[in-house]
């Protein structure tokens, strides 16, 4: 892993007049995420004045800045890359893996409202779909779409299903979905187009500033099945 990390070559571009975007080749890969997390942590620690937001995604790291506190964004960015590189050479990447977060999911058909149609499309039994979905350890690639929504991957090709062409008006909080190679959980009631296979009783986003998002980029997630009765006991979301 160390060898691969040291080969990453950061590029940078301005994104309009108040953002800078660092980028790596566009590939969806946990190793790229590891590198983005390293650079992200380095910039967070550097705590540069005038940086309002640091937003990681699959292959990019974007900084939102205050124009009045930033004179030459590209110079600033290239300087950050240089400092990061020199620091990285001294401290060989040796970061511990994030611990695995276990997430209970009730795959009852009343929650997993797309299980039946997926089962016939994929030519797999619902039990097999559940087994395959709970087998992998998923990586959180990024967060977005709504507060606390984590894009996780990669979903086993056997159960990959494209999102609905027309999004549903209302998907319940805690719903676990699949969209192609990605899986994720709706933190709150919202419109959404993902294929819904179950529901977690866990609260994924909490407005309490001390809690906020259950997941962060780089986390590893393992789903495990629970019964409807267990769901009711554990449920932290209002039912709808």
């Amino acid at each position, binding site marked *: 892993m160390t060898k691969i990390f040291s080969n990453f070559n950061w590029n940078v571009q301005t994104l309009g*007049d108040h953002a800078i975007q660092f980028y790596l080749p566009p590939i969806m890969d946990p190793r790229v995420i590891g590198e983005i997390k390293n650079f992200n942590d380095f910039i967070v620690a550097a705590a540069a004045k005038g940086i309002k*937001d*640091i*937003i990681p995604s*699959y292959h990019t790291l974007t900084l*939102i800045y205050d124009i*009045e506190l930033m004179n030459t964004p590209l110079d600033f960015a290239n300087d950050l890359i240089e400092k990061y590189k020199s620091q990285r050479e001294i401290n060989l990447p040796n970061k511990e893996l994030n611990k695995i977060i276990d997430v209970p999911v009730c795959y009852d058909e009343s929650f997993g409202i797309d299980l039946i149609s997926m089962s016939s499309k994929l030519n797999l039994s619902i039990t097999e779909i559940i087994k395959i979905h709970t087998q992998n350890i998923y990586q959180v690639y990024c967060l977005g779409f709504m507060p606390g929504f984590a894009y996780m991957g990669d979903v086993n090709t056997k159960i990959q299903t494209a999102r609905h062409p027309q999004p549903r008006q209302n998907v319940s909080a805690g719903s676990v979905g699949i969209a192609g190679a990605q899986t994720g959980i709706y933190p709150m009631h919202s419109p959404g187009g993902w294929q819904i296979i179950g529901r977690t009783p866990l609260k994924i986003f909490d407005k309490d500033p001390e809690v906020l998002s259950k997941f962060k980029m780089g986390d590893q997630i393992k789903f495990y099945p629970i019964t409807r009765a267990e769901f009711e006991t554990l449920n932290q979301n209002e039912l709808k």
Partner: protein
Amino acid sequence: MSVQIVKHGIMDTLQDKGRYGFQHIGIPPCGYLDYLSAQLSNVIVGNPIDAPIFELHFPASSFIFKEDQTICISGANFVPVLNDKSVAMNTAIHVCKNDTLHFMQPLLGKTCYLAIKGNIDSSLWLNSKSDFIAQIKTNDQFNIIAWDADINKNSNNPTEQQNQQSIIDKVQKHIFNSNEIRFIPGPQWNDLSTESISNILKQPFYTSLNSNRMGYQLKGQSLQLMEEKTYLSSAVTRGTMQLLPNGEVIVLMANHQTIGGYANIGQIILVDLPKLVQHKSDTLFHLNLTNVATAHSEYKQMQQWFS
């Protein structure tokens, strides 16, 4: 001191300069749509420029003031009426106990600001009072808390009043008298077809009625990529121009999603974003290229007006 909502409008909210530092967990920045008009209104009543303010869309909320207060209305002209007399825009207005304010018709622009001298009392979430999902509702009552004496400077000095009038004129002219909206090319600009690049720079556009605090949809010549392509999602900003697969452009506004997977063909510069915010669907504008240096120098210059 307090103000009460007599009847709420369709999408009126309380906004300040926005909520930063949480986009990495998907929390949109929110904040004023037309920050220049909001700042102007705050300056006129003697508030700090980044004070919370009511942001109104037509049909707008109506208000009743519970005590004597100083207010100012800026941005879009919805023909404000105090009790039964129309009142001027961009002027400090003294209102008395039980005066009511309502708005008659959307004469000019789309987003109006009501500043009240003092700090509008509302719960702070993650360092900001900006509403994200909530809107102001009929019978909501907001206390208005006086600023500490040192922030409170309201000058009646004639030279300062003259200066203030010249700033008002400059801001109004910038926002409402221009049909040019400038942008900086984005990461996928070069993926556009040659014809689309020519169309975007030469053909006029207008805003769709389907525009809100999340994004403004542009109508005009349909744009295409050279070849169909998919992109991995990455961060977007206020002003990002996303090209949808149907050939339309959405310009992201304050309540935008934090990351997006559509082609990012450019970003509208911050000083020109208020122009777009205020553009109604019946007026055409042109999109022109600019660069970071110009965008920065104009932004700094305009912020100087308010200092």
